């Protein structure tokens, strides 16, 4: 499990860095091609939007890993340790339920539907199913991290809280 998690950490970081660098270059190219070259690129706007979806979802996994998502800890902080552990496990399970149902199952359905019916994006002409594929991928990643977190809680370890 730990090997998988470490590998996942690496892949996730590289993917995010690459996506952020790309989105920066794409939007700069949009300005350059329109203003300096007076030959506006017709695909950068769409490409930037699709990259943002990918960054949002991959980054959501990363933020989940680093426990950076915003939450209300005020009540739980006042609980006794045993009860607190129970609630922490419940939180991880809730996240798993959401990610498994909506992102993995719903996302995969959406991806399959758009691939089957061959929906093409307006400017790039790529299959929308590929754009949507990030949903089941990142949903699965969050589930893995959540399972890892549950393991940590059960063993009484801190789950790498920052």
């Amino acid at each position, binding site marked *: 499990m730990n090997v998988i998690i470490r590998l996942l950490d690496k892949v996730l970081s590289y993917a995010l860095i690459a996506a952020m660098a790309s989105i920066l270059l794409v939007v700069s190219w949009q300005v350059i091609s*329109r203003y300096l070259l*007076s030959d506006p690129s*017709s695909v950068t*706007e*769409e490409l930037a939007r699709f990259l943002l979806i990918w960054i949002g979802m991959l980054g959501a996994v990363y933020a989940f890993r680093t426990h950076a998502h915003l939450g209300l800890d005020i009540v739980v902080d006042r609980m006794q340790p045993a009860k607190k552990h129970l609630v922490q496990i419940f939180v991880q399970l809730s996240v798993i339920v959401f990610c498994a149902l909506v992102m993995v199952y719903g996302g995969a*359905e959406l991806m399959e539907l758009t691939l089957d*019916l061959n929906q093409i994006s*307006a*400017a790039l002409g790529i299959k*929308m199913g590929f754009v949507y594929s990030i949903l089941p991928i990142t949903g699965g990643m969050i589930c893995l991290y959540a399972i890892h977190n549950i393991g940590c809680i059960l063993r009484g370890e801190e789950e790498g809280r920052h």
Partner: protein
Amino acid sequence: DDTVILRLGHSLDTQHTVHKAMVYLGQRLEQYSHGKMKVVIYPSSQLGSEREMVELLQIGSLAMTKVSASPLEGFAPEMKLFSIPYVFRDRDHFWRVLNSDLGMSLLKGVEKVRLKGLGYYDAGSRSFYTTDAPIHTPADLKGKKIRVLNSPTAVKTVQALGGAATPIAWGELYTALQQGVVDGAENNPPSYYLSRHYEISRYYSLDEHTSVPDVMLASLKVWNSLTEQQQQWLSMAMADSVEYQKKLWKQASDEALEAVKADGVEVIYPDKQAFRDAVKPFHDSFKGTEVGRIMQQVEAM
């Protein structure tokens, strides 16, 4: 109870003729079905963009939507026909094609992607509007940054006419025109007027390069869940609504032109032949393709 509720989402605001025609569709449907069928309308992209709402029909969580034929290209490639400039000679020719077997078969074509085409609404013809200088001939477009719809066909159309095609989101367009990020855009008279772009871009050249109809769609899943009788009622109500909208559109289009003229906008009626000649090579590029074959059929009508 056994009342059928059809949820209908669209991207236009409630002032638009198509919205009014949809309200009328709902009234007719209630009459035909003696109150057994109702339409609930969600305007202003409340439920998503046009492309996304088509997806919702495929998913089955929304019953009906209206989509411009242009974004429909991504689902049914032959719809590209409508985004190609000057495929129709005039309004008569345009409607003759839509009402022909060809027009119906294009509608029927969306069934393979789990959609049911119910009919076409009029969305007029699109023309250029510019901020700094008027467009009389394609040469006037040279080097001008023109905002286009996000589609390769729309990009190539403006490029064929000499302009620099720039895709910009509809919501950002007013500011982009104001700040000069783009020099102009193109749309039909009611949209030019209702979007208030005429406040910035004071030249409107009615070259009427494309006629992209609006298409009313139903989810095939929802359609198949209706009884034959209910399907018939819906088709009848849709037919009534189409006739009603055609009249409203004519009126709205005339009123929009009057209003912008009254506000001091210079409306130009350029010689369209020069524009037709300019897109000839673009037309030729479709030879031998599926769309090219449809274009030939249209030409012959």
